[in-house]
């Protein structure tokens, strides 16, 4: 693993009106790392990702990507970034080929190159028969595969993936995990955000846990295990986010379900 800093956040903070969503984040990401970026809903995960992608431009502190401050460097850095958005946003009245050639075009790729790559990548995901079918008819898993291809078609050095695996079947999931692993070995850096803890646990070589707008844990899975004396990432997650009531909530839930039944 090389020691080049790809991405660094310095005292990054963000408020919406009077509510503070991020408190002074400091983070250095090195080349070839797969970062599992986790945290409860509303912790500020997607806000940070949107800042790094330049979707949110007003924030305190500085973000440097590939050694340049994104507030001042212009949009050229985005050429080396790939992104799978959290809501799976895609222009679904287009066909995958049309969509991929559009995205490739925005990255200024040659037409021939786009066609060749898109066809081959779609074939590997067993989607070649729907290359010219509108995406609106696709299942969730198929959409995610198209989104994933769109995020890597221009051979980016930094990948932001927001919940990219949740609609995939076990086999496809295995393929994507392996792809991410090999991409990281080639020196790509991957920022991986998900709620599926055991996937994060297996896939990442560094885990960053965000809670209430602050980084509460940062390290390899083994390091987190030692610090927190807990077995799985899920348990560590619960402990660090201060969540212990799952049993009480569950038993109230069950008793309401059952008693409601008796009375009604």
């Amino acid at each position: 693993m090389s020691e080049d800093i790809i991405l660094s956040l310095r005292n990054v903070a963000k408020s919406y009106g009077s509510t503070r969503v991020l408190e002074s984040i400091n983070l250095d990401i090195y080349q070839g790392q797969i970062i599992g970026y986790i945290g409860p809903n509303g912790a500020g995960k997607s806000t940070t990702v949107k800042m790094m992608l330049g979707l949110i431009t007003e924030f305190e502190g500085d973000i440097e990507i590939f050694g340049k401050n994104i507030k001042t460097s212009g949009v050229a850095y985005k050429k080396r970034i790939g992104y799978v958005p959290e809501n799976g946003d895609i222009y679904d009245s287009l066909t995958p080929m049309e969509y991929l050639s559009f995205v490739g075009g925005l990255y200024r790729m040659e037409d021939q190159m786009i066609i060749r790559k898109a066809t081959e990548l779609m074939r590997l995901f067993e989607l070649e028969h729907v290359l010219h079918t509108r995406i609106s008819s696709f299942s969730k898993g198929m959409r995610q595969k198209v989104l994933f291809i769109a995020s890597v078609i221009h051979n980016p050095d930094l990948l932001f993936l927001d919940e990219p695996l949740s609609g995939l079947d076990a086999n496809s999931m295995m393929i994507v995990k392996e792809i991410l692993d090999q991409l990281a070995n080639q020196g790509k850096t991957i920022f991986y955000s998900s709620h599926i803890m055991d996937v994060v646990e297996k896939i990442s070589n560094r885990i960053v846990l965000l809670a209430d707008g602050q980084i509460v844990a940062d390290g390899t899975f083994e390091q987190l295990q030692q610090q927190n004396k807990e077995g799985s990432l899920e348990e560590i997650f619960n402990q660090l986010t201060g969540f212990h009531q799952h049993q009480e909530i569950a038993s109230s839930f069950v008793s309401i379900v059952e008693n409601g039944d008796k009375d009604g």
Partner: protein
Amino acid sequence: MIKMDDFRSLRILDKFQSLFQKAKVDYPMMREILQLKLTMDTRRVPTIFHESKSDSGNQFLKSLGIYALMGLILIAFLFGDQYIFQVSIMYAIVMFIIMTSTISDFSSVLLDVRDKMIIGTKPVDSRTINATKVVHITIYLCQLTMAFTAIPMIIGLFNQGIVFFLLSLIVLLFVNLLILIMTALVYIIILRFFDGEKLKDIINYIQILLSISMIIGYQLVARSFEFVDLNVNFSFEWWHVLMPPVWYGAIYEIVLNGVTDLSYIILAILGVILPLVAIFLYIKLIPSFERNLEKLLSNSGKHKQAKEWWSRFWSKVLVRNKEEQVFFDFATRMLKNERDYKLKVYPTIGMALVFPCIFLLTDYTSRSIDELRDGSMYFSMYFSLVVIPAGVQMLQFSTNPKAAWIYRAVPLKNENVCHRAVLKAFLVRLFIPVYLILSVLFLVIFTERIWSFLIILVLVAAIYSRICYQVFLKNVLPFSESYQIGQSKQSGQALALLALTVAFALFHYVMTLASFGSYILISVLVFINAFLWRK
């Protein structure tokens, strides 16, 4: 090839390439995005097409044909030289049509939040993205305006001369500018105070308004020529300042008739200055617009539970048991919330309310009010029955047809209960209001002598709706089919059902000729209803 269609508008745009590059806009990127956007436009079904469902061909181009046809209405205002009057009406129509279509068909484009995620993350600078948005809207407005006004303009060229023609080109430019900015300002204001759901509701109602005005517009085309010979004396009132079409009428008076009245000059100046002021305001407000656009994604506003006194009252009157009650409440709420349903059915409600009145008016122009009162024109109220086949047919569809698994997953003993409850909910929510409004109006005009007519009509409506329901939902559960399929197949049935209303009306009329005919009819209808609604 993968390439999407090459558009003529883009090829014209290519000629201005250097202009964009001087403005530091990344032209190849802009072209790429525009090409995608225009391709997507051709695959969108415009509001005026909501009846047809074929997914093939360039939907947008076809809709332009309809606008061209509608534009013929403007020809009526091209004769004569009472510009302040004619031209003002003409621009009122132009502005209304273009603004409503922009809002109903182009909102999804203006408010597409996917843009931010998909294009914002690519190496395209915000200057280019904003320029692209403006050019895209401009292309849309140009096409729409050309389709709508081309034929009238050519006739105007021959009829009113070259000055009129050139002046119209310039004025249309200003009018479009004003429309564009006004639309954007409306969005900015709505988004400032409400959340995305409210905005979607408002857009939905504007779409409905557009559909209604299309239908009524067709009726008016035929009559519009009657206005031509009108001789109206225009005198300036302060409130003319608030009416943009009058500004442009004043410009025509000044240029073509040489009027130098101060009030006309004020109006004309407003017509030129305000669009420019609006642009300035728009540029100032754009950043806040972009920020508020995010509200479309989140549902931040607090929503109060809707008041339901109307349906609760009727459910006490009409609903018999618990199971039916559940489906009745469910269907009422579905009918209230499904925007697609409202878009397809509410225009018919407009028709049902307006057409009986148009019949009365036509009759009134040829006779005196007393003759009208003594006549049988109240039978035009039978026209209100059009709501029933239109609305019942749509009951089988839903935006989320797959959610109909719920019917299969619950222990539903008797499907008929569900069907009956849904039909009742439809009548309560859509037919009864129309019926009551028209009843009050007709009671005022025709006095209480028509009470038996009104009772017979509501009994007929109950039977008729049951028949419609049998025809359309014989084999399907309510809200279980997609709007995309199967709708056009049933147009034959819909027509036959409309013919049935005429048969009902004729039979009813014949019965009233006999002594006690109405009373016999009422008792027969009550009996049939009791039988039909029994299960």
